[in-house]
C-alpha cells in the first residue's frame, strides 16, 4: 500500500473530496456541441456528393453539358445562379440580424427577421424549381447521364436542406409565439442559425465547384 500513502501525503493530510454536494440542473448543456457534430456529419454527406460529382461530373454520355444544352443554349445559366447566390448570402445576413435580436430577447423583431430569412429561402427555392423545370423541359433529366444524375442529386440535396430550414423556422416561430424566447427556444434558434449558415456555405461551394468550374471545364 505504498502508493496509497504517497497519494494521501501529497494532499497534506487533507481529506480528499470524492463527490459533489451541490449541483445544478443542466438542461441543454450538450445541445450546441451535439448540433455541431451533426453538422459535421452533414458536411461529410455533401463531401461524398461533391466527390462523386468530381469523379462522374464530366461523364456527359453524349447528353447535355454545362455549356451546351443540345438546343443551342447553355445548360448552366450563370445570371440566375448569381441571383440565387446573392439571395442565399443575404438570407444568411438577415438570419444573423435575427440572432442579434434573439440574444437581446426581442421577440417581435427576431420573428420579423426570421420570417424574412424564410422568405428569402422561398425565393431561392422558387428560382431553383423554375431553373430545373426548364432543364426537364429540354430533356436534361435525372436519367440522361451520370453528369446530370450527380448534378441534380447535389442540387436536390441542397434544396432539401433549404426546405427543411424553412419548415424549421416556421415551426420555431410558432413555438416562440407560444413560449417566448425561453432558454430552450433560444438554443433552437442558435441551432437554426448554424444550420442556415451551413446551407449558405454549401451553396457557395456548389456555386464555385459546380457552376463556375463547370463553365470553365
Amino acid at each position: 500500500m505504498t502508493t496509497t500513502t504517497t497519494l494521501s501525503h501529497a494532499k497534506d493530510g487533507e481529506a480528499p473530496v470524492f463527490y459533489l454536494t451541490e449541483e445544478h440542473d443542466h438542461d441543454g448543456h450538450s445541445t450546441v456541441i451535439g448540433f455541431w457534430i451533426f453538422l459535421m456529419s452533414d458536411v461529410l454527406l455533401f463531401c461524398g456528393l461533391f466527390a462523386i460529382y468530381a469523379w462522374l461530373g464530366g461523364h456527359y454520355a453524349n447528353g447535355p453539358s454545362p455549356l451546351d444544352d443540345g438546343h443551342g443554349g447553355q445548360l448552366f445559366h450563370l445570371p440566375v445562379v448569381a441571383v440565387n447566390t446573392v439571395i442565399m448570402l443575404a438570407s444568411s445576413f438577415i438570419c444573423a440580424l435575427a440572432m442579434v435580436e434573439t440574444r437581446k430577447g426581442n421577440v417581435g423583431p427576431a420573428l420579423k427577421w426570421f420570417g424574412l430569412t424564410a422568405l428569402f429561402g422561398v425565393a431561392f427555392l422558387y428560382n431553383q424549381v423554375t431553373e430545373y423545370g426548364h432543364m426537364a423541359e429540354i430533356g436534361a433529366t435525372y436519367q440522361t447521364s451520370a453528369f446530370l444524375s450527380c448534378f441534380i442529386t447535389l442540387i436536390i440535396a441542397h434544396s432539401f436542406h433549404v426546405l427543411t430550414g424553412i419548415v424549421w423556422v416556421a415551426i420555431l416561430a410558432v413555438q416562440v409565439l407560444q413560449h417566448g424566447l425561453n432558454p430552450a427556444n433560444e438554443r433552437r434558434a442558435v441551432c437554426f442559425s448554424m444550420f442556415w449558415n451551413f446551407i449558405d456555405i454549401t451553396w457557395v461551394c456548389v456555386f464555385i465547384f459546380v457552376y463556375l468550374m463547370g463553365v470553365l471545364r
Partner: protein
Amino acid sequence: MSPDTPPLDPIFGRLTLDAIPYQEPILVVTFAVVALAGIFAVGALTYFRLWGYLWREWITSVDHKRIGIMYIVLAIIMLVRGFADAIMMRLQQAIAFNGSEGYLPAHHYDQIFTAHGVIMIFFVATPLIVGVMNFVIPLQIGARDVSFPYLNNLGFWLTAVAAILVNVSLFVGEFSQGGWVGEPPLTGAEASPGVGVDYYLWALQISGLGTIIGGINLLATIIKMRAPGLTFMKLPIFCWTSLCVNALIVLSFPFLTIAVTLLTLDRLFGTHFFTADFGGNPMAYVNLVWIWGHPEVYILILPALGVYSEVAAVFSGKRLFGYTSMVYATVSITVIGFVVWLHHFFTMGSGASVNGFFGLMTALIAIPTGVKVYNWLFTMYRGRVRFEVPMMWTISFMLTFLLGGLTGVLCSIPAADFQLHNSLFLVGHFHNVAIGAIVFAMMAAIDYWFPKAFGFRLEPFWGKLSVWFWTVGFFVAFLPIYVAGLSGVTRRTRVFDDPSEQNLQILFVIAAIGAFIALLGVVFFLVQLFVSIRNREALRDTTGDPWNARTLEWSTSSPPPEYNFAFTPVVHDVDAWADMKARGYSRPSEGFKPIHMPRNTATGIVASVLLLIFSFAVIWYMWLVAGVSFALLLLVLIGHTFNYNRSFHIPADVVARTESERTRLLAQQG
C-alpha cells in the same frame, strides 16, 4: 418503367401472394418456429400482465442502462439467426462435392451468405458494441445519463426496426443476393430487379441512421458529461476507445448513407451513378462503401480493445500498463483507419503508387495494435492474474487475434493481395479478427458487466465451457478455410464441380465440424444465462463491486439506481474507484438532494415503426401507404418538438430511501 408493364395495384404495389415463399420447406418450417415463438411470447406477456411494465420501463425508457441492455438482447437474438446462416453455408460447402449439388439452390444460398454478413455486422456486432458503450460510458464517466436521452431511445428503435426489416424479407419476398456490401452492377436494377436488394438497402439506411444518431449522442456525452476532475488523460481506456469509435461513426457513416442512397436512386429512378452505361461507374460505389466500411472495421474493434484493457487491468489486480501509450495507439488507429480503404480492392487497377500507399498504411496499423498487445501482456506480467471468465476470453483473444492480425498484414501487401483477393483466405482473416476480437470481447464484456447490470454474477462453469468451445471451434472451423483459400478457393462458392478441387472436401468437412463446436459455444452461453437466472439468489452480489474493480461504475450499487450516482463523483486519478478505495472513501449517507432526470418518451418507437412501414411500402412500390406513413412520421417528429416538459426531479426522500436500502445491504455484508 416500360409501357407494357401491368399497372401496379394502388395499395399493394408489386406485393402479391407469390411473394410468400411457401414452396420452400426450410422457410416454412422457420416461419412456423418463429410464429410459434412469437405467439408464445405474446401469450406469456399477456398472461403475466407484463405489457404495461414492458412499455413503461423498457420500450419508452430513456435510461441509458435499459437501452444498452435492449441493444444487447437484440444482438443476441440476431446472433442466433446469423449463426444459423453460417451453419447452413458450412453444411452446403461440405456436401457439394463429387457431383452433388448440395441441399441449397443458388437463389437461396446467395441470400444466406448476404444475410449472414449483413446480420453479423449490422445487427450483431454493432448493437453489441453500441449496447455495451451505452450501458458503460455514463457510469464510467460518473454521469447520470447521456447527452440526448430521447435520441438514444430513437437510435435503438431505428436499429431494431432495421433488424425486423431483414427478418421480414425472409418470409415476404426475398433478401439481396449481392453479398454484404452489395456491389453494383450486380445489385443494380437490371441484374437484380427483385425486392431483395431493396430490403438490403433500406435495412442499411435505417440502421445507419440509428448508428449516426447514437454516435453523435455518445460523442457529446463523453465530451460534455464527464465528472469533475475526470480530464481526458484520466478517462478509462474503454471510454477513450469509445470516444474514438463515435468520432469514427460520425465521420464515416455519412458515406454509407450516400452510397446506399445513390444506389437506391439508381434502382428507383433510373439514375446513372453506378450503372455500367451512360457514364456511371460501379467502382464509385465500391469506393464510397469502403470509405465507410474500413472505418467500420475499427468502429467494431476499438471498443473490443477497450474491453480487454479494462478486463486485463482488473483481473491482474494492477493498473493498466502504459496508459498513455494506449491512448496514443487508439488515436493512431482511428486516424490511420481512414486512409486504408482501398486495400479492399487493390485489384481495381489504381496503379502501383496508389496501391503502395494504401498497402503501407495498412501495414502501419499493425504497430499501434502491437503496442496494445504488449501493454496487455505487461499488465498481466507480475500481476495476480485471476482466471475468471472475462479474463479467459481476453487470453483466448490475444492468441487468436495475433494470428488474425498477422494474416491481415499478409493481405496488406498488394502483390500478395492479388492472389488472396476474393479468396477464402480473406474470409479466414476477417473471421479471425471478427470472432477472435469482437465476439470474444463482447462475451467478456457481458460476463464482466452482467453483475453490474442485474445484481448477480453469471455462472462461471458454463462460461468457461463457452470460452473453450468458441476458441477450439473457431480454430477447427477457420484453419481449414485458410488452407482452402491458399489453395485458390474463391469465397461464396456454392458447388465444387471442378475435378481438380475434389480433394479439398475434407477441409470443408472439418470446417463444418468446427462450426458445430463453435455453435456449442453459443449454446453454452445461452445455458449460462438460463442457469444463472435460475440460481440468481446464490450468485447475488450486494457489494456492487464483485471483481474488486478499478473504475467508477463499480462504486455504485448493482444494479445501479435510475440516477446512477446519488452524488456526482469527483475524480482524482486514472482508475478513480481504485483510488477511492485506496484512500478510504466513505459512502455519503445523508444530505440527499432531488435529482434531475429525463422523462420517458414514446416518440422513438412510434417514429421507428412508421419508418419501418414507409420503407416496406417503398420496397414493394406501395406508394399510397408510403405517402401516408411518411406524412405521419413527419407529424410525429415535429409533434415531439412541441413537448417542452421533458424532465422531472426524483424527490430527495426517494433517493434517501434507495440509498439507505443499499446501506443496509452493505452492512449485512459486514
